[in-house]
């Protein structure tokens, strides 16, 4: 972005702040809105900002962009802000917003779809650990068709960033203790059956990704 230099500033006068760049409605057209509406099958244009979704959300407190604002951002085409937000990873998919929207806007599905887009984009997630957890879950699932909790948790904790974070906030020791109790109580199983259908699934996934066999 180009900064304009004010002549007064060099003459000992206090520098005038350049007007904050404002994004106007329609700056980016309605491509993003139309895309999300088509892909997610949600009528986002119907949102009239009543904030029922945000009031129903159990974790809106932890969100940087509140659910009703997410709808507005999409209407305005503010893609990058949404994809890098904490909101899309904090969302629990508890479906309160969707259930209580008076205009039947599927807010949870919209946020879910933004997660899908973010996962495929180059934008680094704000809440990395939550994105990493989902990714680890799918990695374990892809190798055995089912998810064994010990494999999931050990794969998750062996990620360097996660381990560092857990050590920094002091939760590591506590969580190891819980893990040991789970083992002792027989709630964690080292070996659980694999699904023989995994090959079939991998093949199906390849086909959906456009690879014919």
């Amino acid at each position: 972005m180009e900064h304009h230099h004010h002549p007064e500033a060099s003459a000992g006068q206090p520098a005038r702040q350049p007007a904050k760049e404002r994004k106007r409605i329609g700056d980016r057209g309605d491509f993003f809105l139309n895309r999300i509406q088509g892909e997610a099958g949600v009528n986002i244009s119907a949102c009239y900002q009543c904030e029922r979704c945000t009031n129903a959300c159990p974790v809106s407190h932890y969100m940087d962009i509140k659910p009703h604002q997410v709808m507005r951002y999409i209407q305005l085409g503010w893609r990058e802000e949404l994809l890098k937000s904490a909101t899309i990873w904090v969302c629990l998919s508890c479906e309160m917003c969707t259930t209580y929207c008076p205009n039947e806007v599927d807010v949870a599905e919209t946020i879910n779809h933004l997660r899908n887009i973010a996962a495929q984009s180059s934008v680094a997630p704000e809440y990395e650990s939550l994105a990493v957890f989902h990714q680890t879950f799918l990695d374990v699932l892809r190798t055995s068709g089912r998810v064994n909790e010990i494999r999931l948790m050990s794969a998750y904790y062996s990620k360097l960033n996660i381990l560092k974070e857990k050590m920094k906030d002091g939760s590591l020791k506590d969580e190891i203790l819980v893990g040991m109790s789970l083992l002792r109580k027989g709630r964690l199983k080292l070996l659980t059956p694999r699904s023989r259908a995994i090959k079939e699934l991998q093949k199906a996934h390849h086909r959906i990704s456009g690879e014919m066999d």
Partner: protein
Amino acid sequence: MKLSFYPGCSLEGMANDYARSISAVFTELEIDLVEIADWTCCGATAAHSLSQSMSVLLPARNLAAAEKMGRDIVSPCAMCFNRLRFSQQMIQKKLFDIPWSVTGDIQVHDMTRFFAEPRMIASIKERVVKPLVGLKVVCYYGCQMVRPPKITGYTDYENPQTLDRIATAVGAEVIDWSYKSTCCGASIGIARRQIGESLAGRILEKAGQAGAQAIVVSCPLCQSNLDILQKDRPEKRIPVFYFTELLRLGFNKITDPQWFKMHFTDPVPLLRAKHFL
């Protein structure tokens, strides 16, 4: 009656006690339950968060296998149930193409609704030999079993009744409360512990305020969260039962306190005080 059973991953690990109590209850009620061959994970939150195609494909493979068996599916896990129904609707509405032959015509039951049908309630009542009289419980449904109603088919999603009916049938005193379907935090606690603890903590707090001596659940993840995240409340600990455990107590099939060894919040003192053990 013949049904196919889709256990889901939790029932092989964290909730293996739930799995054992389910198969025992179905045997006791003389219902033929056959596990879906080579079932795969439903994908849970991870699949629908990262890849829509995985979130439809994974349950679709299980639907296809159940259709081949010609049996309706019963699902004990709220998340699996929700994902199966979601995938089924995507297939029915022709919104997604999958490489298996599936019509989506078989029924997917969540296990609580199956047991709460009048016929099953009557069958349960016939077998209760040790009614849990005086046991004050609240029933906790969580999210995925009831919401969104267009997927789950629940019409009383604000005040669901299936677990309430089952717990009443086994003789427990069911207390009405406002947190039946407030989110427990699901897996968020793994990555963001303080969020998970605050959500589960509020539900435990409200259950205590309602006067409940125990919480009844059907979802493995809800059970884990509510049962495990109680160590900071030593004076106010409240056991969290799977509803199938209550059924088996009522049928007088659990007499050994060792059964409850997988619980973090030990229910044995409460059950002893009530003379149920």
